[in-house]
């Protein structure tokens, strides 16, 4: 498989998995698919490499020396290598047949000219798309301008950001439903307490009625404590639920709130049964 296609394939698979699991909405799926189908999507990985390449790797324009920033000593060393190579190729003779001086002898007079020649060769070679320090790729295309590459990099990140927003909102929705269930349970508790104590007051006055009221309130306190604990948790979660961070934390808070609402509802049902049992027992007491 063409390595340049790896990232678009991974992105496409991630989109499909996200759509199946409900983490990616249809609109986000459409946006991601449109991004993948944009001509040149297979250039994404090479674009990314170009963006991340250090500035020193940029090619030089023709005739522009020094863009690869070789030290001066290195240029002069290469000038000597070029001079010696020329001497070796011509048998130590100049173009008109005269003997060539050694590099040490000639360096002072014509060293600058040979250095200029070396610099010109390097600049011309680099401007054709080859890297001095790496392998030679004469057919390498010029890298695209960074803004285009940044665009392709930002779009999938934006799409993934949308998926997180969706998850956070879903967690908040679950949390809110749990709070509404707890609020309804509190109203039921108020009604139950008032009605049951009124019923206990209709019992013959005496120690039996007093004990029944005391016992009911003690049992009721368990439900009140559960509700207070859930309210403290809601107060503590207020800040985190307003944040736009990773959705996992919000999902955990939503699950905990749902569990608290369920526990409160169960305990309230048990309190109702206790109250009914209490009336039955007290009514049958001599």
């Amino acid at each position, binding site marked *: 498989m063409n390595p340049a296609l790896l990232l678009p394939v991974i992105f496409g698979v991630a989109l499909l998995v996200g759509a199946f699991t409900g983490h990616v*909405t249809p*609109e*986000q799926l*459409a*946006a991601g698919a*449109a*991004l993948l189908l*944009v*001509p*040149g999507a297979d250039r994404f990985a090479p674009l990314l490499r170009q963006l991340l390449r250090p500035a020193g790797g940029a090619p030089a324009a023709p005739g522009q020396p020094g863009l690869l920033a070789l030290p001066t000593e290195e240029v002069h060393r290469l000038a000597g290598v070029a001079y010696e190579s020329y001497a070796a190729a011509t048998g130590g003779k100049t173009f008109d047949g005269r003997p060539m001086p050694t590099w040490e002898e000639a360096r002072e007079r014509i060293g600058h000219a040979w250095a200029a020649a070396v610099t010109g060769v390097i600049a011309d070679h680099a401007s054709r798309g080859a890297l001095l320090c790496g392998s030679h790729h004469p057919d390498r295309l010029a890298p695209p301008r960074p803004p285009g590459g940044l*665009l392709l990099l930002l*779009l999938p990140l*934006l*799409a993934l*950001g*949308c998926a997180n*927003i*969706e998850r*956070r*909102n879903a967690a*908040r*929705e679950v*949390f*809110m439903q749990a*709070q*509404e269930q*707890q*609020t309804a349970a*509190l*109203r039921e*508790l*108020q009604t139950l*307490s*008032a009605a049951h*104590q*009124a019923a*206990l*007051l209709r019992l*013959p*006055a*005496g120690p039996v*009625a*007093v004990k029944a*009221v005391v016992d009911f*309130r003690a049992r*009721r306190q368990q439900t*009140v404590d559960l*509700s*207070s604990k859930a*309210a403290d948790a*809601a*107060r503590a*979660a*207020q800040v985190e*639920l*307003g944040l*736009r961070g990773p959705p996992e934390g919000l999902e955990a808070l939503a699950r905990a709130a749902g569990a608290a609402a369920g526990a409160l509802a169960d305990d309230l049902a048990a309190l109702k049964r206790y109250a009914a049992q209490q009336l039955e027992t007290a009514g049958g007491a001599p």
Partner: protein
Amino acid sequence: MNLGALVSEVLSVVAGAVSGEIKSEGEAIARLQVIIKQRLAAQQTMLAALQADDAEVDRRLALGAGEGPK
């Protein structure tokens, strides 16, 4: 449609989706704060109501005890 127009179209879809999602998140957060306030207020209301009801029941129990057995 040329490449530039296509990319612009994709950008506007994504930007619309993102801005819509961000707006919906802001609304969800605002609604959440209201719900939590209501929950905490309901807790206080419940505690106050139980306390008031208990006080009334105690008063009537004391009255009933003061009246003696019927």
